[in-house]
Every structure is written in C-alpha cells, then in structure tokens.
C-alpha cells in the first residue's frame, strides 16, 4: 500500500466501466481534493451514475481509482466506503420498512470514529434537517421526495466521510426543494466535507462547485472552473444544452 498524503483525496485515472456488455465509461480521469466541491455534468446516458458506481466498486471497472492516495484495485464497495466515502445513491434509495432514525444509524459503518469523536451524529443531522427530527420514528418510505433526499444525505454523513459522492440529488424534486438541497450541500462542504456532485441541472452545480467536469460519451470532455464553463459556449452547446 503506497500512500501519498499530498495526492487528491479521490483520483480516477483511465477508468473504464461496463454495465453488462455495454462499455459505459471509456477512460475517465477526475480528481477531488479534500474540502473541495466538484460537479460532474452531462446529459442523460453519458455515464454519470455509472461513474459513481465505478468509484464505489459496484460495477465492473478497470483503470485506477485511488482514495486518499491508496489504490482501490479490486477493493469491495464496503472497503472503499470505509476509506472515507459517503455514498448518496440516485433515486435516494432509503431503506423502506425501517424508520428514519434506523436509516440514519445504518450509515454508521466500521470506519466511523468512536461516538465521542464523531463530527456527524444524530443530533447534528437533526439540527441540520429538522424535518427528519419530526419524522424520526416514521417509516422512511412515507417521507416526501425532498425529505428522502435529506435522509439519504444524512445517512451518508453518519460515518464522518471525507468525501460525499452525491448522485443526482435533485432529480424529480420541486424547484424550491432543489435550491434547499443545493444550500445543504454547500453547508456540508463548509464543514470540511468534500462533495462530488453528479448533476444534470447546471444552476445548482455552477452555484456551489469550485470545479466542474462535463462528461460526454463515457469520457470527460471538459474540466475547469464554473467561470471557464460559462465562457465556453461551444462546450455547453455540444455536451449540455438540449
């Protein structure tokens, strides 16, 4: 195990991924440093969600994924998560049949610090998401879409991750709730958690991200600051705007 502390927290190099027989990711390079908010944009079907799954090790992949300087190779999803990545899957995927609080508690894995040293606890999560406190004993599946999204984010924070991988958090949410999710992710980032935000909506990504990648056809076709993307209408026209 080679560890390089100066390296970015997450680094993807030439990552390919397959979904069944489809070759979805065709050589993705991407980096996220500690404390940074990075957005990955792109149209539907370009492989954004597959990239999240490739990071977590849920899909078959090749290439290099390094977390905190350590090559993940054939590491299993739980081992990758225990390296300090909190995963917020697409479509929320809260655990039905379990209460809100039980869902949060399942966010705690073996890598979580001892309770007294945790930055994220039930109390801090409830403080950040008062709706979850009110509904702590209710079944997770009866929450609204926005509340389920807050729950999925809170759940991913419970093990004190250094990086949150958030897959399409605003999909299917009302515009007002989309803004709230954006504010919350910004607040989480302000508490020194890096965020890799995979999104289709430009506005929220451009507002909170320090760097933006644009994906097209299984590759990264643009990488730079939001301002650089604003100044590149050709990139937006070719890869983002419908």
């Amino acid at each position, binding site marked *: 195990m080679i560890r390089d502390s100066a390296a970015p927290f997450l680094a993807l190099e030439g990552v390919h991924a397959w979904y069944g027989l489809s070759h979805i990711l065709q050589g993705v390079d991407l980096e996220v440093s500690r404390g940074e908010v990075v957005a990955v944009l792109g149209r539907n079907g370009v492989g954004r969600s597959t990239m999240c799954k490739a990071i*977590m090790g*849920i899909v078959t992949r090749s290439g290099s994924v390094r977390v905190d300087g350590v090559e993940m190779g054939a590491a299993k*999803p*739980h081992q990758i998560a225990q390296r300090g990545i909190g995963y917020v*899957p697409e479509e929320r*995927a809260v*655990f039905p049949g379990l209460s809100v609080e039980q869902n949060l508690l399942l966010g705690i*894995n073996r890598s979580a610090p001892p309770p007294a040293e945790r930055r994220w606890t039930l109390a801090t999560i409830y403080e950040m998401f008062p709706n979850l406190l009110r509904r702590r004993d209710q079944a997770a599946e009866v929450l609204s879409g926005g509340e389920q999204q807050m729950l999925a984010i809170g759940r991913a924070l419970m*093990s004190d991750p250094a990086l949150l991988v958030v897959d399409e958090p605003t999909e299917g949410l009302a515009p007002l709730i989309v803004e709230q999710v954006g504010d919350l992710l910004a607040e989480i980032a302000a508490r020194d958690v890096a965020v890799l935000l995979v999104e289709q909506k430009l506005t929220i990504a451009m507002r909170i991200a320090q760097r933006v990648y644009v994906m097209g056809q299984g590759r990264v076709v643009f990488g730079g600051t939001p301002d650089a993307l604003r100044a590149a209408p050709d990139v937006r026209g070719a890869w983002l705007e419908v």
Partner: protein
Amino acid sequence: MEYLAFALVNGLLYGMLLFMLASGLTLIFSMMGVLNFAHGSFYMLGAYFAYQIGAMGSFWVALFVAPVLVGVIGMAVERYGLRVVHKHGHVAELLFTFGLAYLIEEVVLMVWGRQPMPYRVPEALNFPLFTLGEVSFSAYRGFMFLIALAIFVVLIVILRKTRLGMLVQAALSHPDVLWSLGHDVPRLFMLVFGGGVALAGLAGVIGGNFLITEPGMAHHVGTILFVIVVIGGLGSLAGAFIASVGIGILQTLMVAYDLRLADVLVPGLAESGYRGPFQEITTMTLANLGPVMPYLLLVVLMALRPRGLLGKRDH
C-alpha cells in the same frame, strides 16, 4: 369439539414447522434473489444428522449440533458456491441450487441408503401430555411447538430489535446501497444463508423423527415450501407465516375430517347409488384432496394476485 381442537392444534404445529423452513427460504430469496431449490435438502440433512448423532450420542446433543453442522455447510455453500456463481446471474444461481438438491439427495442415498431411518422420538418425551376425550396430545408435540414458537419469537426479536436485523431488512430492499455504505453485504448474505438453512436443519431435527426420515423427504417438503413462499408473497416473512399456518391447518383439517366430496357438494348423492359420468367423485374424500389443495390454492392465487398475499416484488 375436542376433535376439531386437536386438528387445529396439529395443523398449527405443522404450520409452525413449515414456517421454520419458509422463513429462511423467503429471507434468502428477498435478499439474494435466489430461490433456493435445495432448501428442503438442508431440512433432510438436519434429520439425518440428528439420527446419526442420536444413534451415537443423544437426541439432546443432536438438537444443538445438527443445525449448527447444517448451518456451517450452508455457509460454505454460499461462500464457495453461490458467491462464485452469482457473477453469472440468477439463472445460473437457480440451476446451482437445483443441482445441489440432487447432489445432497445422492449423497444421502450413498451414505444412508433408500430405507427410512429408525429415527425415533426421544423416550423422555414419548408420553401423552394430556388427553381430551379419546385423543391424546404427546409431550413431543408440545416440545416441537415450544421450539417452533421460540424460533418464531427469536426471529422477530432479531429482525426488529437488533442491528443485525436492521442490516438484514436494509439488504432486503437495496443490498448494493447498503454495501456502498460500508457494510460487508457478502458476509451478511453468507450469515443469512447459513442461518436460514440452519433453521431448516433444526426443523429436520425436530420433524424428522415425528414425520419420517427418508431420501424423499427433501423433495416432498420442498414442493410444499415453494407453494408457501409463493402464496405468501416471495420475500414476505409475514406472508410466509400466514401461508405456512394456513396450509398447515387446512391440510390437517382435510385429513382429519374424512368427508366425502359428494356429501359436501350434493348431499345424498353418494347414497343414491349414482352411476354415470364423474361417478368417481361420489367416492372421493376430502382427505384425497388434501395433497392437491396447496397446488390448487397456488394456481388460483397466482391467477388472482400474482405477487402473492403480502409480496412486494413484481419481478
């Protein structure tokens, strides 16, 4: 009246025994997506192991050791068999458990032969617990009932009150998400598979001497189990419980009340000496129909409600 009470109690007992098998089967299915065709075979192994350990030592040792042995074999099957086959999809897994059922049956035939085993109810429990009218209820039935009830309670407590139970429930719906949240889901699968077949093994230990211990027992119980988990709704524990007890009671009642079908349908038909088309029906009894009933229920229910009584999965 006593007769009805006994038939109900026996049906409930049979149903609880079936639930010990069905609970594991349905949990394994909903977590791993594998309908374990070999589940009945682990029930059979439990009975044979218990007979063998009982012959060498005592039933009480077998009661603990046999299910543990079956569970360890189950974990090995999951770890070195299913997990490897898993990459190739559910059909491959299904075929794997199908082959495993035959493999276990052949091994049992090789080691113990075709004849039923003289696996008997332990002497200490071989006395009537109480008698109502002319029918007596044996102490062993009471013992089986206690074990089945204890397993039922323990299962519910584990699922509802422990962290392990929370993990299992979470893995029922989104195993990949649970895995990516940092929990070792393959290990959880192994534990659930091992635990599930250990329960089947325990059912074999307490049921094999009461019913019969012979090479066909796996197949016989396997088909009924399949019917139960489908009727209850694949993946639903509550559904499996209702279907187990329901089928247990229904089958026992049909055998207990040996009524002629004709008397139920057209009173007086059997006595009339009717000869003509379908005359066989006049002599057919409800007990004859008992074995067909679960499959009839299955077909009717599938036509009316394809996902079963309490099933959630559509695919």
